[in-house]
């Protein structure tokens, strides 16, 4: 038996096939093209940076979510973890007397390290509950969603933690070579995630566990540890996002991040990662997040009324995925 070459490299794809194969990239380009034609302000350096900066938080969350979803899990708690790490790290970075951490503002790096640790802690708890106690991820992280929000409110007494030190705010508002820091954070996170998922042993493990946990176990992989780790990663990235958010808005709000999980999951799924695990790419996630960001930006730029925005956004999300539908054949 001889097998023929796969899809003929290069040429020979019909237009329809191209749309299907690169569906989501195509949808993104289409959206950008349309907006460029409709609105002269869309394709300006400034607006492009805006879109990227606005995407940074959802993008970072969605990248963490990709790790979790690749193992067949889900992390509903990211929005709450955003708020919790925000107030925690901010309380070490506040310059106002409202800061109740002695010695605040601490050096920004300390505050950031604390934020990351808090995020990883939340992720770790979810991870243990999922991996060790076999509680479905949906329930475990729903519990964390509720608990982390409660802790946020308790820690902050329900009030914003204001007046953050300039060095801390730099991660949200600073820029290097004219490019805002959050964009570097997003791209750095993406590059690291892409490297881990495609080039490392741990990345291979993640795909195997998501693709067939039983086969992964039989092949000697530490399935539980891998399951645990993806939640830690998601928590750490939620922590990062929480700090960017606090740094951007200038104070850490305990009510921040509500419903962020939905946008993050949407970016992952739009980007072609299957909720059934084992299949997907973090580059797809980035494109998914960008698509959502461009959509929000474009509708605002065109001055579409907010109610219509919601209706239109609903249809656009579905339409984008339909373009990409060939990847999602179900049976």
């Amino acid at each position, binding site marked *: 038996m001889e097998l023929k070459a796969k899809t003929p490299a290069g040429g020979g794809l019909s237009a329809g096939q191209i749309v299907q194969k690169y569906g989501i990239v195509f949808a993104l380009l289409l959206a950008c093209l349309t907006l460029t034609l409709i*609105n002269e*302000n869309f394709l*300006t350096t*400034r*607006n492009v940076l*805006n879109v990227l*900066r*606005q995407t940074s938080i959802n993008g970072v969350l969605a990248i963490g979510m990709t790790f979790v979803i690749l193992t067949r899990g889900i992390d509903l708690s990211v929005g709450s973890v955003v708020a919790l790490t925000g107030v925690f790290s901010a309380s070490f970075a506040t310059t*106002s*007397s*409202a800061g109740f951490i002695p010695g605040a503002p601490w050096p920004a790096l300390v505050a950031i390290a604390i934020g990351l640790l808090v995020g990883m802690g939340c992720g770790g708890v979810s991870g243990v509950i999922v991996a060790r106690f076999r509680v479905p991820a949906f329930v475990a992280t729903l519990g964390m969603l509720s608990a982390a929000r409660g802790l946020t*409110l308790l820690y902050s*007494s*329900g*009030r*914003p933690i*204001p*007046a953050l030190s300039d060095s801390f705010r730099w991660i949200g*508002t600073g820029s290097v070579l004219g490019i*805002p820091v959050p964009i570097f954070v997003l791209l750095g996170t993406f590059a690291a995630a892409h490297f881990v998922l495609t080039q490392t042993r741990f990345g291979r493990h993640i795909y195997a566990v998501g693709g067939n946990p039983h086969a992964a176990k039989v092949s000697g992989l530490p399935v539980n540890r891998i399951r645990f780790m993806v939640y830690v990663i998601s928590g750490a990235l939620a922590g990062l996002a929480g700090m960017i*958010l606090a740094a*951007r*808005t*200038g*104070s850490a*709000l*305990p*009510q*921040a991040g509500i419903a962020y999980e939905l946008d993050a999951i949407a970016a992952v799924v739009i980007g072609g990662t299957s909720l059934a695990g084992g299949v997907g790419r973090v580059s797809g996630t980035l494109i998914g997040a960008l698509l959502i960001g461009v959509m*929000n*930006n474009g509708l*605002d*730029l065109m*001055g579409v*009324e*907010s*109610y219509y925005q919601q209706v239109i956004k609903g249809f656009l999300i579905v339409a984008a995925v339909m373009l990409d539908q060939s990847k999602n054949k179900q049976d």
Partner: protein
Amino acid sequence: QDKPKIGAAVYGLNAEFMQIWAQAAENHPAVKEGLVELTVFDGRYDALVQQEQFETMITQGYKAIVFVPIDIEAGAAAVDAAAAAGIPVFGSNTRVNSDKLTAYVGSDDVQSGYMEAKHVLDKIGCKGNVVIIEGPIGQSAQIQRLEGNQKALAECPDVKVIEQQTANWSRAEAQTLMENWLTAHPGEIAGIIGQNDEMALGAIEAVKAAGLKPTDFAIAGIDGVTDALHAVKAGDMASILQDGHAQAQGALDLAIAAVLPDYKPMSEIWSQYPDMPWADGKAKEYNVPWTPVTADNVDALLATRQ
């Protein structure tokens, strides 16, 4: 032992304003002295949850209820149920569209909307373009503050509202919205009317992020949350203080008076606001005045937020 139980059902405790309100209620002298037992119920921004909490309070034999509904239209059924059980309900902060409400302590949102818009319009000299960042459309506070905004705008026919959109009281949403507007209308926006402080603060951050100076804009918000006080102090914006402390303690005084015979109001707010007389606790409405936050009073206000 058998202290009368009073419940405070507020629409949600996740944001600073209601937090100030709740703390004021818990710090009411009569509560501190143990004359009554107060429980604050968090309505989690859901009219139904609030109604269920009313049901719980009725079962538990509460003697009076202070009520901050999520919307003027959203609490009537709950008030009816309490009234049917003989429990008096006192509105605070947000009205309820029900004649069963025993009394109401709040501030007139139309007035604050007028005051903040007026401030913005004065600063831009009654000409140029403004944007309005609104609360969740249809909520009574949004409707009334907008009414006030428009009243002020009507006095400046040369001013054009070039964008008007909701940011759902959220700082992060307002920030994104403002970033996009600054792109869509480069150099055209002179005034920013935020229907609350959070959204005004978001707009300030967007302005800064765009490399512009907030002081070059006329920006105003409402509520007087702590961050806004700092921003006022820095000269970035104007804010109108809504005295949640007075709304809470005033309503609580009324509720306690309904429960304890011969009770005299214990909160200091009645002396603070001579314009709002106690009237033996018999009036139907108590109007807590708005206080514009200025360079003069901001430090004193900040001192109360420790």
